[in-house]
């Protein structure tokens, strides 16, 4: 009589075991982390395991989705801002949208406000989110997933967005305890919502500890029973960063513009760095 919710407890797995167990071809997969704690190592493992036809979900695709898209893992992208922060374009994302290379990429585009609200609605078990956004924009005109709804009290017209419910959400966190409880701190972005909105959740962590030592009663902790797998993956967010562990590799983000601009150089770089380890 016990529900699946109760039986659920995080398993301690290797990264490759965790990806093999929880990410399948055709899945809707969210790798979240708002500039901070981006789960690069997990994304590379997805590439190494050759997953295909994924619907990739991320507010800011960032370099990790440029890599997944360029390696042909994705059939669709759900996103709200697709650039290299402070540098410029994501060339592999552009090549897929502009020229269908290596394969056509369907897109479902949001604003940050809309996409954050859609994750929150998913976490709350609601079918949609309401907000006041998208006023006067062409996105509201071209996007079938942006609709209007009327406030039953004021008659005000509001925007409705369907809730996001990924098959699996993957995040990187600072640490987990041996029971599988996870702690993140610093810029916490939309990770809690993305994990709670998903059917399955995988968390890579910098280290496994006996005591999470939450710095306050209100730091972001995800209980073991909201997570399916924890994989210890030191440096798993590089070239993004892990607050309190290592800094953001801004130089690499800048260098990526040159690496990703041409298909051949991109493929060579991926072969060399993701076939093996990506960053020393």
């Amino acid at each position, binding site marked *: 009589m016990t529900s699946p919710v109760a039986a659920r407890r995080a398993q301690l797995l290797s990264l490759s075991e965790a990806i093999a167990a929880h990410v399948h071809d055709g899945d809707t997969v969210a790798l979240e982390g*708002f*500039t*901070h704690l981006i789960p690069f190592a997990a994304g590379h493992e997805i590439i190494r395991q050759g997953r295909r036809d994924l619907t990739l979900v991320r*507010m*800011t695709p960032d370099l990790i989705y440029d890599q997944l898209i360029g390696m042909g893992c994705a059939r669709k992208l759900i*996103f*709200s*801002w*697709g*650039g290299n*922060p*402070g*540098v410029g*374009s*994501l060339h592999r*994302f*552009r090549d897929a*949208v*502009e020229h269908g290379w290596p394969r056509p990429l369907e897109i479902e*585009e*949001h*604003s*940050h*406000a809309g996409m*954050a*609200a859609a*994750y*929150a609605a998913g976490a709350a078990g609601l079918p949609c989110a309401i*907000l*006041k*956004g*998208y*006023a*006067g*924009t*062409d*996105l509201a005109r*071209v996007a079938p997933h942006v609709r209007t709804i009327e406030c039953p009290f004021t008659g*005000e*017209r509001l925007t409705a967005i369907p809730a996001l419910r990924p098959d699996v959400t993957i995040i990187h966190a600072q640490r987990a305890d041996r029971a599988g409880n996870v702690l993140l701190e*610093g*810029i*916490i*972005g*939309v990770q*809690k*919502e993305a994990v709670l909105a998903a059917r399955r959740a995988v968390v890579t962590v910098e280290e496994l500890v006996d005591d999470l030592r939450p710095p306050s009663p209100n730091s*972001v902790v995800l209980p073991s029973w909201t997570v399916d797998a924890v994989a210890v993956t030191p440096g798993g967010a590089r070239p993004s*960063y892990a*607050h309190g562990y290592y*800094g*953001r*590799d*801004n*130089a*690499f*983000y*800048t260098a990526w513009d040159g690496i990703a601009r041409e298909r051949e150089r991109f493929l060579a770089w991926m072969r060399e760095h993701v076939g093996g380890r990506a960053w020393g």
Partner: protein
Amino acid sequence: MSDYTPAEMMMVAAARALRNDDVCFVGIGAPSAACNLARLTHAPDIVLIYESGTIGARPQTLPLSIGDPELCETALTTVPVPEMFAYWLQGGRITVGFLAAAQIDRFANINTTVVGPYAAPTVRLPGGGGAPEIASFCQRVFVITPHERRAFVPRVDFITSFGFGEGGDHRRRIGLETEGPVLVVTSHCLMRPDPETKELTVTALHPGVTRAEIIARTGWPVRFADRLEETVPPTAEELAVLRELQARSASGARSA
């Protein structure tokens, strides 16, 4: 008075438009430079908010991303991203939002999504991110962008962020209560919307810039204010602080 570039004039002019009691929603690049320049000169109490959730950030270097570690380390507090957009931006707590533009039209509508048709773009740009709601919910919007003809177009290919739409009271008609883009700071001039038509009008030329240059760099028959002012050139202090900030940031960007 020392020599300076048009980009420096642009950032200095934008910084000057900020007040000590403003609460700013800051984008990366020129907006971040302008806001931090203001904070380090005439507006020490200005509140800088980055969409990554950092409120009251006081970075010593210019962040490359809106989520650089220093923003969180120097912030008064950091909130989740859904809260940032719901309680802080949509909640109407921000006085000034900064936007950059790939394309901007005569009614200050902004495109950062696509060049060409949306379904088959010739150039796919990053998209909206926080911009559509910054344009709707900040009390005032400042646009900061280099003055080039390919950017200043008669009509944007795609309205990513709504300015004044087709002009006049279009904002009110679609239910927006905020002032919208009240100032456009370019590398060559300042533009403000006409009080009635809301068409962008040149109100000040940066030192040494001619009307002919502005006309040549603007994709529509641009209008000039009757009382056309000349922007005060950057002071030695403004330039020193700005260059120091950028030097620190450049070295930061090189290091891992």
